[in-house]
């Protein structure tokens, strides 16, 4: 479940990311009444098994079963909640509506939500790792070692979101950032899933990495992500 919007008296339109049909929207009838048989199962973050009937304009949800109640744990910690919300919005933006199966994005999101709800790592690190990987799946993989323009072997000094990652001295563009080497190592670790090194990083590297990951994400989405400024780092 990615997003819910009120509809009419007591209904909601819910946006969901599905394994086989990409992103889709459906109506949950009567879900805002406290007597609804859906209960809290159609809240954002919930991982559910759904049955949907084709409706006239929008599909209608007829049955829901909970697979993992991520919403309950995520909502009770504000840092986790704000990090998680940005993951939902990113998934919504990077997966096309009613399109191709989105198995990779789907599995990535479920994995990240599980990791958030079990507090396996720092929520901010989980978010940045998710953002980098989700962008990679969508075809915007950043390069943290080889130069993103000429391919020369790294390590390099400059980072440029518009060029796709690190740049060598010859390709360096004005306006590039010069992140500390351990910041680059952290981002690279978050992309590949090297959690041992990511957890060992210091606060300064994390802060710098978050800023660069956000810049990279905002560059590759047509409109910026709304929820990112609210993330409680």
């Amino acid at each position, binding site marked *: 479940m990615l997003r819910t919007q009120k509809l009419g008296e007591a209904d909601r339109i819910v946006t969901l990311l599905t394994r086989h049909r990409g992103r889709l929207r459906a109506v949950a009838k009567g879900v805002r*009444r*406290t007597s609804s048989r859906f209960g809290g199962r159609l809240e*954002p973050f919930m991982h559910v098994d759904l049955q949907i009937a084709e409706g006239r304009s929008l599909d209608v949800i007829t049955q829901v079963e909970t697979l993992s109640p991520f919403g309950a744990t995520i909502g009770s910690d504000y840092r986790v*909640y704000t990090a998680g*919300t940005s993951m939902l*919005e990113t998934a919504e933006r990077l997966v096309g509506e009613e399109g191709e199966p989105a198995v990779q994005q789907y599995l990535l999101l479920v994995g990240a939500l599980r990791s958030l709800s079990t507090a396996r790592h720092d929520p901010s690190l989980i978010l940045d790792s998710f953002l980098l990987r989700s962008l990679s799946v969508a075809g915007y993989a950043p390069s943290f070692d080889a130069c993103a323009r000429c391919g020369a072997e790294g390590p390099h000094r400059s980072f440029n979101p518009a060029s796709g990652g690190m740049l060598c001295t010859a390709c360096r563009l004005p306006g590039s950032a010069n992140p500390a080497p351990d910041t680059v190592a952290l981002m690279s670790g978050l992309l590949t899933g090297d959690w041992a090194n990511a957890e060992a990083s210091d606060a300064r590297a994390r802060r710098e990495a978050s800023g660069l990951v956000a810049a990279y994400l905002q560059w590759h989405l047509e409109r910026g992500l709304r929820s990112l400024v609210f993330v409680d780092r």
Partner: protein
Amino acid sequence: MYEGIVQDLIDELGRLPGVGPKSAQRIAFYILDADPGDVRRLAEVLTVVKEKVRFCITCGNVAESEQCRICADPRRDLSMLCVVEESKDVVAVERTREFRGRYHVLGGAISPIEGIGPDELRVKELMQRLADDTVTEVILATDPNLEGEATATYLTRLLRPLGLRVTRLASGLPVGGDLEYADEVTLGRAFEGRRSIDD
């Protein structure tokens, strides 16, 4: 598409919350068929409500003067403050007759995906109201859904250092719903059984 003014009416109605294009069309044709007197009264009420009703300077509830009726009532218990999302939640809690304190209306819930953070709500005003020691208990009565829960979580973190008793409505309110739909008995019980938030 209809001609000029009829389509304008449908468009305007369609901008109301919860009114889709089909309902907008239905309401428009109801108005076209209705007695002219009825329609005039509706138009007048709409104009007057916009002129007269404002938001209480103390709590943010709808009010017909500077302060709402509840804030102006000297019999209300000043030591208890109930925080709700919307004015309609004040009505829902009042129906239970369980609560004799005052309210604070946030104006919504924290929803980063809709661009709503703490600064977009009346959180600063809440902190200002708590600056002296009049209030000793804050009851967080945000909706029993994810955004209401997250808002309560945020407020708890903010309020705890003030040394107040911070409580949340008891479970028993079904998760996922809107507070305004809870019946008086259930909501009343949730008030009675409210629990302190300790950790």
